[in-house]
């Protein structure tokens, strides 16, 4: 029998005995970014489909939460930096090969865009709203004229934001669990699903709720397919990826992943939504909260488990 015992003299902070450079800040940001991307995507989509008045929550008022979601996410990102006074260096260069650089610039577009989009609808949602300054009124009136263009840009950048949160991780081939190209689409789908769940939860319109419940069902089916494909890919890959998959298939993350992400985050809400679409009454917030918490847990578990997966040499 061949055995191997490795003793390393290295014990660097946040690197040894296993990598833990990213704590709660990055997964929280990935979740909030994905959630905001989901909400903004549907706002843009249903505006362009002319459903502005039919789906008022999706188009008009739920997007007003996104500047706050993005601000909290950016705050978490800032807290994660070890060399905080130099954060502005992100914006002195564009590095095409660095997903983090793409993300920084995408946020630079989508954060102001979410504020502008919200501003154009603020008088619809709060009729007594007064901008106080005429130039702000003029500026908002100017943007209202270009809503179609704004919606298109918002759809494109929300997809980039949603998918980049996964690509950020999948670009690291040093961490076999992250190094799968399905992570980008999986995080995008999870973000869209959480966004749809938030709209469903906050909407007062039954037709809108049903529409977003149907959307969520479809997205959950896509997510489940991707999760299965991810593990099939790992199991058919090299030893390091087989070991990475083992973290979820009997390893230390098995219970948390399958219970919090797959069962509570996908299967149970899907079941409840089918139940409701069949005519039974289930408070909308129950499946919605489950989907959103599953989306959050997915980020936390993947970020933490990924750091535990590595090459052994």
């Amino acid at each position: 029998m061949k055995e191997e015992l490795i003793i390393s003299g290295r014990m660097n902070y946040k690197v040894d005995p296993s990598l833990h450079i990213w704590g709660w800040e990055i997964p929280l940001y990935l979740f909030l970014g994905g959630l905001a991307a989901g909400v903004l995507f549907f706002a843009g989509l249903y505006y362009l489909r002319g459903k502005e008045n039919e789906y008022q929550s999706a188009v008009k008022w739920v997007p007003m939460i996104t500047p706050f979601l993005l601000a909290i996410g950016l705050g978490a990102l800032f807290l994660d930096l070890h060399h905080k006074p130099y954060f502005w260096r992100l914006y002195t260069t564009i590095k095409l090969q660095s997903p983090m650089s793409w993300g920084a610039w995408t946020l630079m577009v989508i954060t102001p865009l979410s504020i502008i989009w919200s501003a154009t609808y603020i008088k619809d949602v709060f009729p007594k709203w007064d901008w106080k300054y005429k130039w702000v009124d003029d500026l908002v009136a100017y943007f209202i004229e270009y809503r179609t263009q704004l919606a298109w840009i918002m759809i494109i950048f929300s997809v980039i934001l949603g998918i980049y949160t996964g690509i950020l991780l999948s670009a690291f081939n040093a961490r076999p669990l992250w190094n799968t190209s399905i992570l980008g689409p999986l995080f995008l789908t999870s973000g869209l699903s959480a966004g749809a769940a938030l709209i469903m939860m906050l909407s007062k319109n039954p037709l809108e709720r049903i529409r977003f419940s149907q959307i969520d069902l479809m997205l959950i089916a896509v997510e489940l397919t991707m999760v299965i494909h991810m593990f099939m890919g790992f199991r058919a890959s090299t030893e390091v990826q087989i070991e990475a998959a083992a973290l979820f298939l009997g390893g230390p993350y098995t219970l948390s992943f399958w219970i919090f992400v797959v069962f509570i985050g996908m299967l149970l809400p899907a079941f409840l939504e089918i139940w409701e679409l069949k005519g039974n009454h289930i408070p909308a917030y129950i499946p919605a909260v489950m989907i959103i918490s599953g989306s959050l847990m997915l980020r936390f578990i993947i970020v933490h488990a990924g750091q535990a997966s590595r090459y052994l040499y």
Partner: protein
Amino acid sequence: MRYAMAVDTKKCVGCSDCVVACQTENNVPIGYCRDWVVEITHGTYPQLELEIRSERCNHCDNSPCVRCCPTGASHYSDGGIVLVTEDKCIGCGACISSCPYDARYPHPDGHVDKCTFCIHRVQKGQKPACVEVCPTKCMYFGDLDDPNSDVSKVLKKRKFKTLIPEAGTKPQLYFLI
């Protein structure tokens, strides 16, 4: 010019002189290290085989850390040496996650830190501190493009391996076996 280092696993006794020399030369904060010693025991008793390696940043030709750095702080310098510009580094940790060798760490001052192949010494024609102090002379440093450099000569003579070549990083730290 392409700087590289070779470590003779048959000569290394794991004394950690290289580690201490590096910490002193580069003012590495207490509790951290830019190079380290790994001891690997293969087999079961009594058929045991021990390999001792002095490891550090591999100064890869295809460095994932340089690729993923969002600010350009991680970059290639003279002879392919991979360096971090401290006042460009935001300490995001992307490069630390990207390194399959875990050769980088967050410096207490905030920026990311790692082996520099002692570029400040190399530019003066000296050897890196770890190579200089090794009591068994198990380390070789030099320019791979120069056939007469220590590292070129020893790699011509001896069998060698690199660590995790399957990661595609094209590492420039060679281990003589």
